[in-house]
């Protein structure tokens, strides 16, 4: 490895550096990470493309406001460790964010290099991933000194991205933090939902360990709302504040006939079996999952892509996304769609399932589809799919994964006294501060916004942490 300094280019003539990836044919059959990350030389080359703007607009695109030009400047100087600490000032989970953030619609969409049209933006996300991985691999054990304990303590419901971010931000200010997690592993959607090939679980574990080293206490198998309520945490356990980041964990179904047949999964179940429970290692691990021959996925978001790609890796001959609009409207990140196509995932667009067909022993054997066309734009601005009368078809399949989103899991909101929720059951909270209708209770992430992205949840965790610190009178 060479730590030599790259010569900064005056103008960004160097093209955006691609990140090496596992070959598509090979990776479609394994669970190793798809993207392999930059080596030092590529990182230096890419960092040299940053213009070090005086008034950086990239930071405005970042939900946790990482000091992007500053960390890239440190990369340019070869101080990768320093660059990682610069990021960690604002973001406690850079190895995760560097992998799953939709940078193209956030920081990188505001990058001046890209704004000039001719060039692609600086690859901020790839650089973040590079330095964060570097810092983890070359960990020298040194940590910035923590302030004296303030005597304050905060309880966190859920160890997903919102809760972990908040825990990191508070513990660095001398607030004692206890995180309560319902599952046996820490990380929430980062461990049960996002597949190993996009976010290795070892990375989530290393980020959690980092927080543990800072003093965050974690309790697994601890279901808030069943063992104790949020009110118990405040009254009995005397927490000064509680943050609810319980996520949007209640899978939605289409409510079409046949949805309870065997072989029909919610994406949450399918991915939880495959990821958290390691069903891909069955029978070395005890949890099975249907290894479908012909798999159909309903939905067009990142979770649908994750499901279809996981099915291929489990050995499906065919894995097909059924989506009621066109490629243009797919809500998934373009990179995920691109990866899915490369790996052989098929797309049946402008089709909407109307019924799942089963056999006598209760297994799904096919799906009836209704052909759609795009009509007038709806409230979301996307063109509404309209059925073409009489244009229907049936496709054969043995496994169906419903990936049409998640509702709010009612367990925590309904067990907390007088906590205001909206008509969908999401907790009502100020998006800038995370404050809820209850004093001393904050909330953020998917339980407030409905299913969104990891980084938005991290942003909500960070804002709630700042609001708590403000309330506690800590600067």
């Amino acid at each position, binding site marked *: 490895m060479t730590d030599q300094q790259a010569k900064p280019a005056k103008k960004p003539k160097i093209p955006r550096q691609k990140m090496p990836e596992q070959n598509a044919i090979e990776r479609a059959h394994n669970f190793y990470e798809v993207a392999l990350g930059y080596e030092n030389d590529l990182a230096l080359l890419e960092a040299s493309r940053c213009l070090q703007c005086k008034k950086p607009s990239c930071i405005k695109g970042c939900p946790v406001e990482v000091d992007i030009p500053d960390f890239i400047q440190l990369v340019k100087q070869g101080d990768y460790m320093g660059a990682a600490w610069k990021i960690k000032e604002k973001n406690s989970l850079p190895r995760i964010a560097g992998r799953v953030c939709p940078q193209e619609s956030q920081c990188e969409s505001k990058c001046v290099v890209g704004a000039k049209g001719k060039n692609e933006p600086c690859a901020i996300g790839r650089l973040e991933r590079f330095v964060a991985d570097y810092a983890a691999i070359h960990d020298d054990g040194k940590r910035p000194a923590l302030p004296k304990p303030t005597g304050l303590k905060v309880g966190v419901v859920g160890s997903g991205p919102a809760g972990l971010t908040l825990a990191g931000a508070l513990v660095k200010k001398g607030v004692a933090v206890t995180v309560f997690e*319902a599952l046996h592993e820490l990380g929430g959607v980062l461990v049960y939902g996002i597949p190993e090939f996009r976010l290795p679980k070892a990375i989530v574990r290393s980020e959690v360990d980092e927080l543990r080293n800072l003093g965050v206490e974690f309790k697994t198998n*601890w279901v808030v709302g*069943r063992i104790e309520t949020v009110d118990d945490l405040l009254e009995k356990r005397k927490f000064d504040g509680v943050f609810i980041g319980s996520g949007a964990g209640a899978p939605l179904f289409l409510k079409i006939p046949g949805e309870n047949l065997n072989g029909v*999964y919610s994406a*949450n179940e399918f991915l*939880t*079996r495959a990821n958290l429970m390691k069903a891909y290692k069955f029978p070395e691990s*005890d949890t099975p999952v*249907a290894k479908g021959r012909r798999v159909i996925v309903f939905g067009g978001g990142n979770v649908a892509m994750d499901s279809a790609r996981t099915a291929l890796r489990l050995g499906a001959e065919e894995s097909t996304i059924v989506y009621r609009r066109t490629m243009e409207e797919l809500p998934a990140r373009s990179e995920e769609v691109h990866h899915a196509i490369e790996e052989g995932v098929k797309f049946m667009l402008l089709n909407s399932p109307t019924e799942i067909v089963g056999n006598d022993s209760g297994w799904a054997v096919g799906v009836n589809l209704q052909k759609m066309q795009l009509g007038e734009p709806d409230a979301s601005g996307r063109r509404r799919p309209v059925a073409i009368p009489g244009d229907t078809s049936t496709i054969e399949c043995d496994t169906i994964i419903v990936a049409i989103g998640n509702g709010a899991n009612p367990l925590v909101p309904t067990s907390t006294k007088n906590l205001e929720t909206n008509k969908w059951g999401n907790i009502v909270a100020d998006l800038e501060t995370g404050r809820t209708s209850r004093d001393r209770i904050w909330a953020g992430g998917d339980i407030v916004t409905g299913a969104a992205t990891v980084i938005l949840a991290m942003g909500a965790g960070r804002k709630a942490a700042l609001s708590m610190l403000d309330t506690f009178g800590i600067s």
Partner: protein
Amino acid sequence: MFEILEKERLGPGVNRAVISAPEIAAAHKPGQFIILRTHSEGERIPLTIADKDEKKGTITLVWQEVGSTTYYMSTMCVGEKFQDICGPLGKPTHLEKFGTVVGVGGGIGVAPLYPITKGMHDAGNHVISIIGARTEGLLIMTEDIKKVSDELIISTDDGSFGVHGFVTQVLQGLIDKGTKIDLVVAIGPVPMMKAVVGVTKKANLPTVVSLNPIMVDGTGMCGACRVEVAGKTMFGCVDGPEFDGLQVDFDLLMKRLAMYKGPELIALNNFRETPRGCQCTFPGGA
């Protein structure tokens, strides 16, 4: 935490263990269950809590060896710890003074019925318990149930103990005698619960059943435990485990419980080939 403090064999393939779990013991109410993992590669399985001791901080689990996890549990000794126990989960039983409550327990279902029987008895009900098994050796917890019941009727399919016949026949007998029954609570194998509902439906008796669908997380996140009640899809883990038996689609439940039959056999055979499973003293005999 989760250390096995006591363990005993109740009958062929049926075991009982007292486990240290103070927080669960403190929070548990009748009808609730836990989800456990035996080891780091283990699956998550739900088991209803058969008893608890808040002061000692323990819960009691009773299980029958059916798959790799339950066989694994039988190889665990006093002093060993479970990897994970999560709970209490599910809605507690609705306990109030109904009048006369008949508890019907079949086989291993007697274990989860026990805390409910106790709760119903404490709530001031006249409790009639009907406990059944295939044969005498498979009857469990009869003494425990007796202590919290006003009347206890035991039946065996083969007539080796008590009434010769099914629990449903005993229940039908009570109804035919004109016994005033305000509520029936039935827990046991799905075909038994279905048969009980067959009897109570005709007599128009409110019937509560506790369902045991396949679960993964147990907190409403995955939807593996979908059951149909009155034509509506419900989640066994958060909407249940207890439902209005008269409205449950038992046939669907049975089909869904068979979803992993093939893999379950592979897992069990795989377990038998491991050092833990290959003992000559393999529980239940291999």
